[in-house]
Each structure stands twice: as structure tokens, then as C-alpha cells.
């Protein structure tokens, strides 16, 4: 049995790997990631310095003033914030009734967001159907109509 070949060298590689792959590699990426800090942190939506969610993870929303996600494909953290444009449009009446925001505004932001997503997917990689991100839509609503939405955020509660 060649101790060097079958024990010492693999042990050396083991220690080397732990350092390089387990520590240095993620740390270096953390460093590089600082250029797009919002992305590295998890695409968080921050209002008045408080995290109110992430563009990428929708939570369960009961309030009729907001766009709701689909609840059929969940994961531990929450739900897919993407829904089809048609599903979003079907929520326009409910949100408008609940908040008084004009339907046209809601329809506009739906189509704008849908276009934005196509752009993010470099157009060619768009999914077959047009989709919107409800977290993005909700953020627009919160930021455009603070007087309506501030009370729902419970930031200080």
C-alpha cells in the first residue's frame, strides 16, 4: 500500500479543496457580486428601508388591494410571482373596486411589465405566453399610491 499515493495526496487535495472551493470560491463571488448588490441580496423590495418582499418570491396575499400570485406551485419560501397577462387582467376589477385606482392604470402597468419581462428575457427567450410579475406590479402600486397602500404594509407594527 502506497501511503503517499492513496492517503497523503488525497488528504492534501481534500484540505486544499475545502479552502478553495468551500470558502474562497463563494467569498470571491460575494465580492464580485457587489456590483449588482440588489441581485446578490435576493432582489429585495425595500420601502422606507424595510424589506417588504422579493421580486422573485411571492408570499400568500389575502388583501384584495394587491395582485395575487397562483397558489398551485408553491415552494417552502412562497410562491411563483409570475402569472399570465390574462390572469392579471382578471384581477383588475377586484383591485380597482377595492382601491379606486383606475382600471386603465392597472391595465397599463400590466402590459408595461409584460413588455419589461420580454426584454429581460432578451425577447427571444420569452415564454410562450405573455406574463407579468405580481411583486413588481404590487411594488408599482405601493410606490405610486402610498396613501392607499401604506396602511397595508404594517411596516411599523
Amino acid at each position, binding site marked *: 500500500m502506497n501511503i503517499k*499515493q*492513496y492517503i*497523503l*495526496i*488525497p*488528504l*492534501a*487535495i*481534500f484540505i*486544499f*479543496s*475545502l479552502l*478553495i*472551493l*468551500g*470558502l474562497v*470560491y*463563494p467569498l470571491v*463571488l*460575494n465580492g*464580485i*457580486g457587489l456590483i*449588482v448588490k440588489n*441581485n*446578490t*441580496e*435576493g*432582489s429585495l423590495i425595500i420601502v422606507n428601508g*424595510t*424589506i417588504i418582499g422579493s*421580486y422573485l*418570491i*411571492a*408570499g*400568500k*396575499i389575502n*388583501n384584495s388591494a394587491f395582485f395575487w400570485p397562483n397558489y*398551485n*406551485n408553491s*415552494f*417552502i*419560501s412562497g410562491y*411563483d*410571482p409570475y*402569472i*399570465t397577462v390574462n390572469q392579471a387582467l382578471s384581477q383588475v376589477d377586484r383591485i380597482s373596486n377595492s382601491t379606486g385606482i383606475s382600471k386603465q392604470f392597472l391595465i397599463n402597468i400590466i402590459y408595461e411589465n409584460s413588455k419589461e419581462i420580454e426584454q*429581460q*428575457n432578451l425577447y*427571444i*427567450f*420569452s*415564454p*410562450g*405566453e405573455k*406574463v407579468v410579475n405580481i411583486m413588481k406590479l404590487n411594488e408599482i402600486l405601493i410606490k405610486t399610491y402610498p396613501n392607499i397602500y401604506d396602511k*397595508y*404594509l*404594517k*411596516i411599523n*407594527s
Partner: protein
Amino acid sequence: MLIHLIQTVIVMAISILVAYLLSKPIATFIKYEKDLPYNNLNKIENFLFKFLGINKENSMNYKEYLLSLLSLNIIFIIFDTIFLMFQNHLSFIGPSYKGLSFDLAFNTAISFITNTNLQHYIGETTLSLASQMLVIITTMFIGSSTGLASSFAFIRGFIRKSNSLGNFYVDFIRSLIFLILPISIISSILLIFMGVPQNFNPFYTVNSFTHQIIYSGPIASLESIKLLGNNGGGFFGSNSANLFEDPSNLSNYFEMFLMLVFPLSLPLAFGRILGKKRGYTLLGTILISMIIIIIMAEFIKPVGVISYRFGNYSAILFNSVSMLTNTGAVDTSLTAMSFSAIIAFLFSMFIQSIPGAIGLGFMYLFVYIILTLFILGLMVGKMPEFIGMKINPRDVRLSVLVFLTHPLIILIPTALALTMGYAYHVLGSINSYTYTEVLYEFTSAAANNGSSYLGYIGNTVFFNISTAIVMFIGRYLPIGLMLAISQSFSMKDRKKGLEPLPTEGFLFLAILVFMIFLLVVLTFIPFVIIGPLSW
């Protein structure tokens, strides 16, 4: 329809293009087992080899190569098992989750070192960030570099006459340092730009119009090696279905590219050394077989929309590519897949080589080639030969053994799990659907794929230990046998001149595709008939 075709063609074209570029350094690493023809790389690697005590001049035969490979891998199995069992004491970054049971820790350790990444746990609520980094990310690199390195040794057997295959540690370090790690870093950065998080916060608590805990961590650094190394184990329990792992349809296609690039580069590297036409023939064999599988997967549409951000087509394509490359990542749950998709995935894993996982997939292709050439040779009245080398009874025996291993380690444990009541225990009832889940579990383990219906419900002593054994045998027994095949070829006389029946060109491609599917269908079709085909 058209947009999907264009997307598929683009991702395939880019994958092949980058695979082609990658095949050059790979071919160099295969050809120059001692000093590389590049001074700068030589300096870097010589420094590392000196530091690690590796002697370039020490070329190993297949037994030594396998033993070195096993030594390194077993060290990680031991470390990973211990670290996961005691992660509550060992983690320097939280959260301070409790240690895993021995059987789960052992299963996870084997799962990651064997490039399988079967996960009988939910990552975000089970593993500390320290475990994700030191165990999961690190082992993903080791498993995939081990696979790539062994394919270097394997191909070497066919290109030159010698009684050794090269030095495992040299091949391993080169695979890791010059290929997998740098591409991983670049891919991670691109993933970050596409929205994948990379931080050391285990979670955020949100209390606003929603109440939720958003788990995060160094996801980008895991995600790239997960796909590039055909590992497939997610940071999250829901894998790439979670938007933090795969935020958009663009990233979805990028991840498909990452899964394909190494497996597709090996036939091209082989072609660079042994004739481009031969390389393209093998690549063509792989691509045509992939198309057959993808058509099968997309053939019966799933019920409803299974993913809004990808669309059904892209979601299924991702899963198909993942099964074809034995990555095992999923961007939508398997439960959402139609029966034709599940059949396609099962066949991808039965075949294991179209293109299969990094390194190993290409090696498995040779088993099919040898068996095909043998029957082909008989049919034209010639003793079979491959690139001027005669295929002898020992090669046939070894190839048959590799081929035999797979059904053995899938079917016997499946039958055991069903008859001994273990499956009933976790699944509640046994019907054609739950039976398929069990069959899928062991197929995935045997093929070192890692996708699973069971997931965390598979966290029982029986499933943890049985799949661990299956993963271990499914990984190392074929590697050993295939290295022996390679060594057998490396010692053969090489005849110059025309092959009696060329092992390149369209006829050979067609025969090979036919034989691959024939052999696998004959072996496994009954289990598909009583499974997905009778849902």
C-alpha cells in the same frame, strides 16, 4: 411553436459551439498526460502538484487509477457524513440547524460525491450555510472533476499504446482548476446578473402585506457547479423551481446550456484526437437520441400551466435536458410531468449516455459502441474492431458487465422496496403511480441522476441506505470496469488503414442509435408498461 423551436436551436447551437471551444483544452489534457504544451499552465500546475505532492511522471494502470479515485472520494464521504451529522457544532455560519441522522448524512455524502445529488432533505430548512458551502458546493466540484478526470484516462486508452492510463491526481487537478472552477466562476457571475442571489444571509423575515421567510445564501456559487458539473442538487428543496435558483426563462435556458456544455465537449475532444468525423458521428448519435427523448417528453402535454415564467415547453425541456445529462435538477416538480415525459426521463436514465453526465456519459457510450460493433462484426463476417483495434472476449465481457450492472441495481432494490413493505410505508398504497415513484428513485440513484419523486419523504433508513448503496455501486463499479476496458484497448496493437465497417459516418450513427434504444428497451420495457404506461 416556432419560438420554442428557435429557442431550442439557439441553446443547442451555443452549447455545441462552446463545447467545441472547450474540446480543445480537454483534448490537450488528454493527449499531454505529463507536460502541457503551454508554459504558463505548466507553471501553475507544477506549483500545485509540488504543493500537493503529486508526481506527474507517475502514470497509473487502471487499478491504481481507480484506487486513487476511490481514496479521494472516500475521504469526502467520511468528512461529509461527519460534518452533516454534527453541523450544529461545526457550522461557523448558521442557521444552527440540528445535525442530520447518520443514514441521511451518509446518503447525502454518497449522493454528492457520486455526482448524483439525490436529496432526501429540504436544503433551506435542513442545512446550515456552512454545510451548503463546505459539504455541498465542495463535494459537487469533487464529484464532477472525478468524472471528467476518469474520462480523460478512459479516452487515453484508445489513443495510444501504453500499459498505463495517466495519473488520476493530475487529471483531477487539471479538470478542477483549469476547466470546471473557472467556468463555474464565470457562470456564477452571469447567474448573479440574471438575478440569482449570492450572500451569507440564511433568511429574511418579511412582515408587510405578506408574511414570509425568504431563505437565501450563496446560491449563485452553488447553482453554477450544480448544473455545470451535472450535479443537480438544489440549494432549495424545490430545486430550480425556486426563483432564486432559476429566476427567468433566460436563466432557464442558460442553465440548460450549462448542463450540456461539458457532456457535449467530450465527443468533440475525442474527435480532435482520433479524427473529427468520428467525433461528429458520436456527437450526432447523441444529438439524434436527445431529440427522440425530447420529442417523447414534450409529446403528451401536462395538465394546465406548470410554470408561468418558463411556459410548459421550456419547463419540460429543462427537465429533459437535466435527465439526459443525468444532472437531475428540475425546474418544475416531477409530479407535474405527463406520463410520456416520465417515460422519456426514465429512458434517459436507463441509457445514461445521450450525452449523460460529465465524463461518465461519454464512457458509457463506448459500452454501447463495443456491443454494437460486436454484433455488427458478426453480421459482416469480420472480427469486430474499433479504430483498428480488435475487440476481444474480455472487452465484450467487461462491456456486458457494465450493461448488466444498471438493471441489476435498479430492479432488485425496487422489487425489495415493494415486497418488503418499505415503499408502502412511505407511499401509503402501491399502485402503478407509486410503483413508478419507487422505480424512478432507484433508477435515478443508479444512473447518478438525483431527481426524485420522494424527496424528503424518502428520508427513511431503508431508502437512505439502499439508495446510498445503489449510488455507490452505480458510480464506481462501472468506472472501474470501463477503466479496465480502456486499459485493455491501450495495450492493443493498432492497425492502420481502413476499417472494414467504418465507425464513423451516417450508417454507423444510425446503427448505434438503433442499438442503444434496442438494448435499453428490451431490458426495461416491462417496467415501463406496468408503470407510466398504465397510469
